[in-house]
């Protein structure tokens, strides 16, 4: 049983976290430019961004755990994990909607930032170097 976080998961989570921070700053700038910025936008952005990164990291941990298992077990584990993470996002969405401290739009948009980060990945210049990752894994183990 692996307790350590895989280097691939760490690397990807870091990339997603950095992308979420950059895109969040861009979103804040847009809110400022259109004159809709309030402190609730910042709180909403923080909660949404944190949830997006946490969701990706938890998914990475599940994938890491599922990889070493049987096919059926892995599929079941992933389905359960997705359900729990979906419920987490639902809870965050509800909190954002019910409490006026958070701006709903600023909370929901960061949830899509990981997808945007993945879409932009080929243009950023980061390549999937399998050999490099394998070597780093070997060094870790």
């Amino acid at each position, binding site marked *: 049983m692996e307790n350590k976080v895989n280097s691939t998961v760490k690397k990807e989570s870091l990339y997603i976290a950095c992308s979420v921070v950059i895109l969040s700053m861009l979103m804040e700038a847009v809110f400022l430019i259109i004159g809709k910025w309030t402190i609730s936008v910042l709180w909403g952005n923080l909660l949404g961004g944190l949830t997006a990164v946490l969701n990706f990291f938890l*998914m990475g941990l599940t994938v890491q755990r599922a990889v070493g298992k049987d*096919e059926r077990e892995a599929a079941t584990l992933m389905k359960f994990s997705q359900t729990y993470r979906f419920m987490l996002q639902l809870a965050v969405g509800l909190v954002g909607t019910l409490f006026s401290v958070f701006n709903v739009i600023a909370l929901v948009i960061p949830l899509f930032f990981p997808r945007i980060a993945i879409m932009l990945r080929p243009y950023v210049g980061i390549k999937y170097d*399998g050999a490099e990752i394998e070597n780093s894994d070997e060094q870790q183990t």
Partner: protein
Amino acid sequence: MLELAIGIILGGCALGAGCAMIAGIGPGIGEGNAVAKACEAIGRQPESRSAVTTTMLMGCAVAETTGLYALVIAILLIFVAPGRFVDILLSAIS
């Protein structure tokens, strides 16, 4: 009569939100299948474990966005749409 109309609006919104959440099932099944196939691939070629894990992570993150769309639509239908529809109804009556 007005109460009935408001009730229909609220009921319709709740029903729509429930239907939208059905889309949340799809990513779970898709991710499960993707991970199962990845496990199979790693079993065949253990040396490609890291590369497969990276690609799978990205694929799962993309697949999950579909569920997020459903979530956003459901939240909008529950918390935003009823108020707007009732306002439209009241302004139409007045």
